[in-house]
């Protein structure tokens, strides 16, 4: 891959700064400029924090400066939350100070028809090679470095644990909701970026940066529109042989297609174009917000060698539903080997029906799950293990959570769980999620995710082969 542009390299300053200036910092608790400083302080950011406010001496116990130019030490990054009219001036000062990364929260630019103002701001950033995110964005999170410029209070919008998923969102509102949900579900993130109007750094720049980011293994994208579809397609094509990309395209209405004069013109809307591009670049397309993270979180698991699923369940009906979904998604039901069948017959009660789906019966305890998982782990005919655990039964105990996590930690085969239920079930799901075992509320959502996972694994295997050929 060609050397990254300076502004893309400078994104390091946005995500991993040693020092950060909050321009527009405020003493008023309900002001955005206050919330951001507070989030850096309370979130445990390890670097230096410099509040910038022309009228304050001190904000949240930190010495406040009138301008970034008044700081003697080096400053890597800045968050700007001043009124739109003041942005150009403070950004110019950031450039002079040698600040490399800027998150521009302020709105009131191209989204309200002020495209010229936005161009002015972009030109200043380009002049200094600043990686500028925004304007009109909600901020950036890096859970590992505790960089947190998201201007919503932590008690209102939960922050996710450290994980491998980078999530970039054109919409701040949608992005924020998903981050909050991910935090509650126990899903981890490496980065969250609300990139707003994308005046300087756009979705393609972020994809290229994240492709080389060691903390990121999965890239999730919420898109409404892009400036250059071809570049997106080319970038995605280069990245998916190394890292999976899960994307959702919002705004699929057929506007424009009505004016078409041909059959093809009438059928080819924006949705079809994006769908085609995603398909060609092996981007995994989500149709709904739920699917976005349903698909993404499964990639915490090792890639499967094939699409043969072994199902273990303590409820017969759920096994039947899972089989139906498996067939609908084009997956295969693993044929258990003779050795597996023999060992299961020995260790399971006589009334258990030894076949796939393996119904270990409603009186199964965690030990019975362990026996079944171990057998499927050893069986070369099983590529993926799906655990259906109904926590409502009298016999099941919480130990099954540890068993699932231990099996997942072996990193031999993907372990995926379906747990359908209420509060008590959710508690167990959260624990599994936070240890990287993806959990689903229904067999159908699990199977849909497994299908995308297996398709992607096949693409990786394929591109690995052609990659080797090319090197020869």
């Amino acid at each position, binding site marked *: 891959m060609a050397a990254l542009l300076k502004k893309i390299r400078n994104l390091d300053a946005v995500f991993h700064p040693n020092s950060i200036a909050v321009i527009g910092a405020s003493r008023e608790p309900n002001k955005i400029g206050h919330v951001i400083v507070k989030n850096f302080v309370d979130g445990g950011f390890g670097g230096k924090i410099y509040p910038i406010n022309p009228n304050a001496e001190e904000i949240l116990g930190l010495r406040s400066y009138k301008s970034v130019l008044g700081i003697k030490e080096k400053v890597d990054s800045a968050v700007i939350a001043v009124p739109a009219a003041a942005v150009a001036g403070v950004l110019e000062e950031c450039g002079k100070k040698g600040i490399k990364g800027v998150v521009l929260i302020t709105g009131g630019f191209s989204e309200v028809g002020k495209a010229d103002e936005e161009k002015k701001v972009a030109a200043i950033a380009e002049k200094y090679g600043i990686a500028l995110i925004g304007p009109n964005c909600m901020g950036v999170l890096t859970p590992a470095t505790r960089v947190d410029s998201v201007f919503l209070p932590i008690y209102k919008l939960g922050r996710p644990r450290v994980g491998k998923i980078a999530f970039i969102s054109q919409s701040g509102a949608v992005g924020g909701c998903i981050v909050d949900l991910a935090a509650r579900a126990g899903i981890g993130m490496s980065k969250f970026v609300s990139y707003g109007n994308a005046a300087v750094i756009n979705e393609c720049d972020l994809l290229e940066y994240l492709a080389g980011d060691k903390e990121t293994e999965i890239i999730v994208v919420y898109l409404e529109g892009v400036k250059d579809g071809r570049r997106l397609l080319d970038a995605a094509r280069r990245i998916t042989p190394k890292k999976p990309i899960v994307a959702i395209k919002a705004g699929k209405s057929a506007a424009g297609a009505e004016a078409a004069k041909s059959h093809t013109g009438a059928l080819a809307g*924006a949705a079809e174009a994006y769908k*085609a591009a995603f398909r060609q670049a092996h981007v995994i397309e989500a149709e709904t917000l739920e699917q976005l993270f349903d698909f993404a979180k499964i990639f915490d698991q090792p890639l499967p060698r094939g699409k043969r699923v072994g199902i273990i369940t303590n409820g017969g009906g759920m096994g039947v539903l899972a089989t139906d979904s498996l067939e609908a998604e084009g997956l295969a039901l693993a044929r258990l080997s003779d050795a597996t069948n023999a060992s299961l017959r020995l260790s399971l009660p006589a009334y258990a029906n030894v076949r796939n789906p393996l119904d270990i019966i409603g009186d199964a305890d965690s030990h019975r799950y362990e026996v079944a998982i171990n057998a499927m782990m050893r069986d070369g005919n099983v590529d993926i293990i799906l655990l259906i655990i109904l926590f409502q039964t009298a016999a099941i105990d919480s130990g099954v959570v540890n068993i699932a996590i231990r099996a997942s930690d072996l990193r031999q085969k993907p372990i995926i769980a379906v747990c359908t239920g209420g509060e008590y079930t959710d508690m167990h799901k959260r624990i599994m999620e936070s240890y990287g075992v993806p959990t689903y509320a229904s067999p159908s959502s699990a199977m849909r995710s497994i299908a995308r996972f297996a398709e992607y694994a096949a693409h990786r295997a394929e591109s690995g082969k052609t990659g080797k050929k090319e090197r020869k």
Partner: protein
Amino acid sequence: MDFPLLSKYGISYPRTEIAPTRMRAVEAAEGMGYPVALKISSSQVLHKTDRGGVLLGLKNKDEVQKGHDLLIARFSHVKIDGIIVQRMAGKESVELIIGGKRDAQFGQLIMLGMGGIFVEVMRDVVFRVCPITRKDAQEMICELRAYPILAGARGRKPVNKSALVNALVKVSALLEKENPAEFDINPLMADEKGCVAVDMRILK
């Protein structure tokens, strides 16, 4: 009917000739092979089918001769340019559509779909961004919901998949080069021997 644009990109269409005489009509039919269709060619006859100016499925020399004479007699009152002789697709052929559209974000898109009523009602169509590879073309064919029909469901002969792949790759080249606003080959008749474009439309 002649499609120089299709010729330029090596996309085949049914052979068509305008025969000024009965003998020429027979020669043309013998040359292109049966079955053929005969159509009246006259600037004064606009709705050929409605007025009985189209004869379909003529299977031999005798039928062509009789058909020719019938059309000449039926339209004796108008000025005739000649009789159009056109090779017809076989009974087992499937009606498809291949199209293109210039998309603001991605450039040329290529579409493959089931033709006839299916394109309107079922919207059984697949898109790709151009240019496409042979592998893309193969995947497009397999992604159609009606793929089993192309693969030869219920005793039908399967359509020639590699000819269809060729056609898609050629249309992709046409779209890349000509960059039309919209483009349709509709219908494209495909059978076990190959596929031919029966009609096309380009919007610059």
